[in-house]
């Protein structure tokens, strides 16, 4: 349901309820007040008639009363559109003889009670009757009000309220509909602005002229846009960089292939083919590392956590790198004690693999790479060391950056290994660093 429809319904219902409550309140209060006023009129009329009879200003006689009776009572509610002849008056003798009655009064006694107010029903018509007994003149005056007329009075007041409502409510509905639309305009504008954007338009929305209610949303949206923008920039930069990094080995491959084709010297051809093989290995390693880096980048902190046997993982990685170590004539010695930690196994594996691979790659031929894993204070310590030149302290911050290669290094690495290690360890919430105890260079991981 749209906000507009929701607001419209709510506002219309509310207005209806307020209107209806007002009507009910006016109805009841009008009715009560009217009852009181009409009751007072009844009382006064009765007293007036009583005093007139007492003063002998009017004389009441049987013959005159009969004349009225012949004509029959006029039903005030049915026939009279106005409120004429609302009152009916009967004058009885104390002995119970009808002395006189008004035109609108029924022939039957309006009431049989002695004095005061009472509601009665005569021939199906309801009456409100006031009785007054005048002992000094021996008459009983009954003044009655048709309840039907009374009701009509109140009904007319309410109708006067409700009929205009019948016209006003649709008008009101239209106005509410338009006002809601007007009120929602800034939201509509924002939505239109968003919809009109293409995926590359990540500039922030300006808060100019937006209502204060929308500003927090715009701020949140802008901060999201900024984050998306910077992550896209990072990705774009990375892709461009990766493409450039792949172009150099491709140039090498092409050049060596052309050398092999152009030269007639079998030794040069053999050398060129060997170089091609070497470059293909290196490039495929780089491709694998790019994929690893992307998967580390996509991994969320602390997800897929499970119990990992780090010692087994280390042995597995060493086994996997046997081919590389053999080709470089490097021996890997593993001293892994049972060490279990809770971590994302694939991230940890990537980190350890890249550290060991790096150590083998940069170790002098014929030397030994030492690996160890042990549990210390609830963490697992993995240490990998080689006899290589290590990483100079001033370079240790740079080597973890993507595509950084040491200018002093003779090994054609991709410059990605240690950045994969750093990112994985970051994601694992662990630590990673370098040290040089004695002659060996160490890389340690703590997760």
């Amino acid at each position, binding site marked *: 349901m749209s906000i507009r429809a929701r607001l419209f319904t709510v506002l219309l219902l509310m207005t209806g309820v307020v209107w209806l409550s007002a009507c009910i309140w006016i109805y009841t209060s009008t009715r009560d007040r009217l009852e009181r006023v009409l009751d007072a009129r009844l009382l006064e009329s009765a007293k007036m008639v009583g005093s007139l009879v007492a003063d002998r200003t009017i004389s009441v006689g049987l013959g005159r009363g009969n004349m009225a009776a012949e004509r029959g009572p006029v039903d005030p509610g049915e026939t009279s559109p106005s409120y004429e002849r609302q009152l009916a008056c009967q004058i009885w003798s104390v002995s119970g003889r009808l002395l006189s009655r008004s035109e609108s009064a029924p022939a039957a006694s309006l009431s049989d009670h002695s004095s005061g107010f009472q509601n009665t029903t005569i021939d199906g018509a309801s009456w409100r009757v006031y009785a007054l007994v005048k002992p000094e003149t021996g008459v009983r005056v009954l003044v009655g009000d048709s309840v039907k007329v009374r009701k009509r009075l109140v009904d007319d007041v309410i109708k006067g309220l409700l009929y205009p409502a019948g016209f006003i409510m649709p008008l009101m509905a239209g106005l509410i509909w338009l006002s809601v639309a007007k009120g929602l305009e800034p939201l509509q504008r924002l939505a239109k602005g968003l919809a009109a954007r293409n995926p590359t338009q990540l500039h922030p929305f300006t808060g100019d002229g937006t209502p204060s209610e929308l500003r927090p949303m715009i701020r949140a949206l802008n901060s999201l846009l900024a984050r998306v923008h910077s992550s896209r920039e990072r990705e774009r930069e990375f892709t461009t960089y990766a*493409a*450039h*990094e792949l*172009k*150099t*080995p*491709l*140039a*090498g*491959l*092409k*050049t*060596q292939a*052309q*050398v092999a084709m*152009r*030269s007639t010297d079998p030794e*040069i051809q053999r*050398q*060129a083919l060997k*170089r*091609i093989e*070497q*470059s293909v290995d*290196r490039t495929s390693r780089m491709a694998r590392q790019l994929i690893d880096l992307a998967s580390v980048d996509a991994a969320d902190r602390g997800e897929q956590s499970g119990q990992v046997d780090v010692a087994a993982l280390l042995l597995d990685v060493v086994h996997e790198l046997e081919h590389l170590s053999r080709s470089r004539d490097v021996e890997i010695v593993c001293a892994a004690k049972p060490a279990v930690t809770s971590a994302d196994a694939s991230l940890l594996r990537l980190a350890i693999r890249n550290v060991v691979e790096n150590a083998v790659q940069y170790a002098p031929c014929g030397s030994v790479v030492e690996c160890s894993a042990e549990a210390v204070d609830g963490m697992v310590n993995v240490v990998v060391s080689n006899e290589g030149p290590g990483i100079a302290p001033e370079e240790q911050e740079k080597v973890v950056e993507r595509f950084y*290669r*040491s*200018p002093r*290094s*003779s090994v*054609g690495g991709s410059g990605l290994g240690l950045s994969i290690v750093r990112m994985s360890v970051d994601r694992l919430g662990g630590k990673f660093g370098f040290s040089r105890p004695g002659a060996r260079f160490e890389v340690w991981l703590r997760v």
Partner: protein
Amino acid sequence: MRLLVVEDDDVLLDGLKVGLELAGFTVDTVTTVADARSALEHARFDAVVLDVMLPDGTGLDLLQHVRGRRDRVPVLLLTAKDATTDKISGLDAGADDYLGKPFDLDEVAARLRAIIRRGEGRSEGVLQSQGVTLDPARMEARKDDCVIPLSRREFAIINALMQNPGMIFSKSVLEEKLYGWQEDVESNTIEVHVHKLRAKLGSNFIETVRGVGYRVGRAG
């Protein structure tokens, strides 16, 4: 023609060295900006092949340094970045030409010959002197419409002499053009090559200037 190739990828560097040597160039190689600087300060090169991204700086920095020393050595930039803005900044920094990776070895050689030629104020690719025509692109000489086969060293010597007709080249200058640092020079090789060239192109084609060196006559 002696080249300095500055490139940090060892496979590509090796390919360029071997490939350009096959095309008749003498090639020296370095992998860093610092090594390239000292090489350029201590030896003369006919052209430089320069990679833009180097481990200790960019090729553009080196280029600015070289041009700052008023060294007009022709420079061919090699780079993985081939966006137009990168080409513009490379050329504006003083490069003579520009090639994006990966490239064709023949194109590198042709562009190098072209920028060397332009650096010497010539526009035609073929050299001519006293009835001998030298085509550096094919590494072959012609005399009286006969193709005369030349070895790589012989080509390098005759190419140097014919590029600068009338100019006297001492033995050590020729040696520098013929051999990279990594190669051993035997004491009498230049004489041996000149002797062979005279047998192929005529005994008077290369003139010996006693005590100074060799030259090829200016007159056609």
